[in-house]
């Protein structure tokens, strides 16, 4: 049943978004829009003095897109690019899995709640939009991982 899509974790992140619209010293930003539905997201990226990533986002859209952005910011904030890369890869893999993949909670934490989304082709883009913006912003800010090649 479709209600499975709306797990508590997703509804919680939707109603109480983490890391949204936080003021950071941004090195780059990426604006992404889904023209079929009008979902919009802007991800800003910066770097702490210890080399870890600073992520902020703003946007509007459905619960899946907004909750995914909230989870993404929680997972990526404070990680080095090399630490972030496997998380980003794992999330991409999960979205491509058509519901056939058991997500690794060690890596993905709250993001495992999006496993059900991969069964609905029309909603995968909703879940991915903030992660795409993150990857794009990282490239612009030259804050990508040096050890892994990602396809994000």
């Amino acid at each position, binding site marked *: *049943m479709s209600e499975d899509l709306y797990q508590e974790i997703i509804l919680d992140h939707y109603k109480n978004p983490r890391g*949204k619209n936080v003021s950071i010293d941004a090195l780059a930003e990426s604006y992404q829009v889904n023209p079929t*539905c*009008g979902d919009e997201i802007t991800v800003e990226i910066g770097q702490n003095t210890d080399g870890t990533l600073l992520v902020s986002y703003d946007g509007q*859209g*459905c619960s899946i897109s*907004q909750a995914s952005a909230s989870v993404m910011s929680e997972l990526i904030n404070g990680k080095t690019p090399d630490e972030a890369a496997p998380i980003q890869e794992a999330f991409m893999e999960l979205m491509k899995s058509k519901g056939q993949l058991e997500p690794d909670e060690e890596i993905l934490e709250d993001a495992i709640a999006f496993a059900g989304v991969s069964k609905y082709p029309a909603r995968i883009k*909703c879940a991915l939009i903030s992660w795409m913006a993150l990857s794009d912003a990282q490239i612009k800010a030259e804050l990508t991982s040096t050890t892994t090649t990602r396809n994000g």
Partner: protein
Amino acid sequence: MFDVKKLRADFPILSRTVRGVPLVYLDSGATSQKPFQVLDAERYFYENSNAAVHRGAHALAEEATDAYEGARQTIASFVGANVDEIVFTKNATEGINLVAYAFSNATDKARQGIDVDQRFVLNPGDSIVVTEMEHHANLVPWQELCAKTGAQLKWFGLTDDGRLNLEPGVIDSSTKFVSVVHQSNLLGTINPVREIMDMAHAVGALGMVDLCQSVPHMPVNVHDLGADFAAWSGHKMLGPTGIGILWGKSDLLNVMPPFLSGGSMIEMVHMDQSTYAPAPQRFEAGVPMVAQAIGLARACDYLTNLGMQNVFEHEQELTAYTLEELAKIPGVRVIGPTDMHARGSAVSFVVDGIHPHDVGHLMDAKGVAVRVGHHCCWPTCRRFDIPATTRITTYIYNDKSDIDQAIAGIKSAQEVFGSPIAVGA
């Protein structure tokens, strides 16, 4: 009045299940379902008379040509048009582009000193007028045309209840063309197109009406619209995809530069130049969509048998019921007219705290197919300060039980999200 339960048997798809529950199809504004009579008409053509039309001397070519031109006659009669005023296009979008390109091509030619009809020539300072409730198909082609010619795009704004604000001064002496939607696909508003076309003609401009959401749902006589052009699609009125209609006054069609050029649309061809056939052939280059034309004509017959006034009254009753039931749910707001005055069957709404995509997704879980998004009316959504809506659209095969299912679906979405919801900033 017709018997909905009985006619539903003509639509094979309506008996299927989705997500394990019976399908409730409330997305006919996007595309209608097809009765077997339309499917059979196409199949019969392919099995019995298939040939390229307007060429060949063999029996099949003659039969195919007769069927194709007969379809044009049926479709013309359906909207009170003359047969040579009906141009087959791929869809309504192409019909609108065909007219936009007539202006663009005439303007290009005029700038090279070629003699063209001045009504289609645009100069900087000229204006084109649309409205803030246009489908992108009746907005973007005019933006493009303005960008190419230096003309300016103007528009009528909307009132808070989703009506046109027909303020004076939008159409003025600079106006060369006015294009408006008859019934909004997002708001459901039925616009006073005759009045607007009269305003256009009073300043010497030409006018066009987008009939995509009106021809399928109410009696329309194209000559009564007061317009010079009109366009609509076949697939929203029980017909196949891949066919639309451009209606135009013959004296205009025959002086417009061609849109797509090539075979079938010519009169004489030499190595250095050609002359063109009169309309409608002038605008039907290449082997056309014969089976689709036949299918669409069969769809017109189907609707004629029901009676378009009956179709209109049936949907008016369903729309009134939809508005009544939506009004009973706390946190649901209709975008567009909330009364039945000059209102068609597209009903858009937003639910407090739940994005339209989520509403649509949870309605789908109950088997209810509705449209979500900006409905190709992004500026209209922006006007109402909303990102998107959920939209219910009905047709001949829907009844009140379908609306009840939709209402139950909306309530289930509110339950999942825990209503009322205060969403964080």
